[in-house]
């Protein structure tokens, strides 16, 4: 049964039915919180505190979505998240692929030492760097700014490592042909290597976008102004706006707004999402 391809003998029917039922029950358990989130976001405020709670709202309304955009600059926050994640990702793809290419193909003294330095930074937890990083960013005047949110996370040793591994597996003959035709290294990289590296870019790109979209600790430390908040920070702030009497339908509406884009990305690019997350081991 489990993990085993039934050879000539089919698995016994009752076992199969039982397994399917258990898996389905588990799936319901996985979905219940998501349904609860959606249903709360569609309830008017008085329905939130009525007992027993209904999983399907009696009078569904979009009012919480309107209310949350009035209580908090959610539209701007949403586009902050989109912009910060997009630019961070783009930067990471450019920087990581070029550095990864250098480490894969160029020959110079100290290259391996340098690459080891990149790898070493991978092992250090983010929280170790957080105090000096904050001071650097503050010195640059980047607190409460897009630069502070975008620039430091753009430099990813993981991305460089991933791209290098990918380039090492590409046959060198590809570039040699281009060089014989007189192309510069940069032209060769852009015209020959980049078009062949779709899978690597997709894996790193999706991973990087999700990591940025879901990042909480770094924005928490450098942003206090609503105008520069990204979604996770805005949601945490929203939840604390009314101490003791959180407006859960508003908060859940904001949460729905924040998870929908990621769920869409996941549904349309499942393979890359799973690959990006499991390859890196760095969860959002």
């Amino acid at each position, binding site marked *: 049964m489990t993990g085993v391809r039934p050879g000539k003998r089919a698995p016994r029917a009752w076992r199969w039915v039982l397994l399917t039922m258990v898996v389905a029950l588990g799936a319901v358990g996985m979905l219940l919180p998501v349904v609860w989130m959606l249903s709360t976001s569609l309830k008017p405020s008085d329905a939130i505190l009525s007992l027993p709670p209904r999983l399907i709202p009696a009078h569904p309304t979009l009012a919480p979505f309107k209310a949350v955009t009035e209580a908090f600059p959610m539209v701007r926050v949403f586009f902050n998240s989109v912009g910060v994640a997009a630019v961070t990702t783009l930067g990471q793809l450019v920087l990581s692929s070029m550095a990864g290419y250098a480490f894969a193909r160029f020959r110079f003294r100290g290259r391996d030492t340098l690459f080891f330095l990149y790898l070493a930074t991978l092992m250090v937890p983010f929280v170790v*760097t957080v105090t000096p990083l904050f001071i650097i960013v503050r010195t640059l005047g980047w607190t409460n700014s897009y630069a502070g949110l975008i620039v430091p996370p753009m430099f990813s040793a993981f991305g460089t490592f991933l791209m290098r591994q990918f380039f090492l597996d590409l046959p060198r003959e590809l570039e040699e042909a281009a060089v014989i035709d007189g192309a510069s290294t*940069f032209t060769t990289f852009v015209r020959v290597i980049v078009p062949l590296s779709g899978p690597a870019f997709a894996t790193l790109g999706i991973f990087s976008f999700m990591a940025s979209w879901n990042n909480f*600790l770094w924005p928490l430390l450098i942003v206090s102004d609503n105008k520069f908040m990204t979604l996770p920070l805005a949601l945490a702030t929203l939840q604390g706006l009314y101490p003791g009497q959180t407006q859960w339908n508003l908060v859940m509406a904001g949460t729905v707004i924040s998870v929908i884009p990621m769920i869409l990305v996941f549904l349309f690019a499942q393979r890359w999402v799973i690959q990006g997350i499991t390859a890196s081991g760095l969860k959002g």
Partner: protein
Amino acid sequence: MYERGARRWLTYGLFLGPSLLGVVVFLAGPIVASLGLSFTKWDLLTAPSWVGLRNFRDLLADPEFWAALRHTLTFLGGYIPLVMAVGFLVALALNSRLPARSLFRAVYFLPVVMSWVAVALVWRWLLNPYYGLLNNMLAVVGIQGPAWLFQPQWAMASVILTSVWKDTGFVMAILLAGLQGIPREFYEAAEIDGASVGQRVRHVTLPLLTPAFYFALSISLINSFQVFDQVYVLTGGGPAGATTVLVERIVKNAFSFSRMGYASAMSWVLFVLIFAITLAFSRMQRRRL
């Protein structure tokens, strides 16, 4: 590679320069600086002063540090076995022939793509003692649920439960990839030899899944030492300090109490802990293989 002389160095600089600059300024530099800071006392207002090992000595005498370490280990002790066991069982089940298998895989993986803040907020509301879904569902079957996040003895259990829900899909995905890499012939051979399902799992699946299992386990361990987002949103370290964890203490000391040196020292202790565990694990794994 291909150009010569100055042109060559220009190319190298173009490819590697920007990345190297950023890695030095935003990654390697801060790591070194943080080690240096851990030997100083610094409140951000006056210049940092060298205090030698005093931060580390203070740490050993700080009950809040020990409490945070204890809570982190409690979290780890509950979360790791649960998430690994559930993730493993789900992977095994979803590797066999089931109807709508890919739909089930997507459903179990779904929470992984949601941000920690979103998940924690949903669960905070779900676990609400009076209006939350969970206690009202328990009430239907005649159980009066606890106050979850508001009760010191239940708060950490709530954090663990939430984390297992979010990360099961992650462990499942890694183990599924491992399971799919096991050649069918092995199972067929075992079956011909008359091995039962249980024997096949024990003697074929488990040994061949070991690398994937270790990978998932060591990543989960590294991450759970750094547990922060969910604690921050779910409990904020409360109630009555029952769920303070290491990263939360580091952030509090640095950014609420302006104890930059002390926070850096604590972050290095955390790093050494994680490093030691990872090292021990890779040794163990090498011996097993």
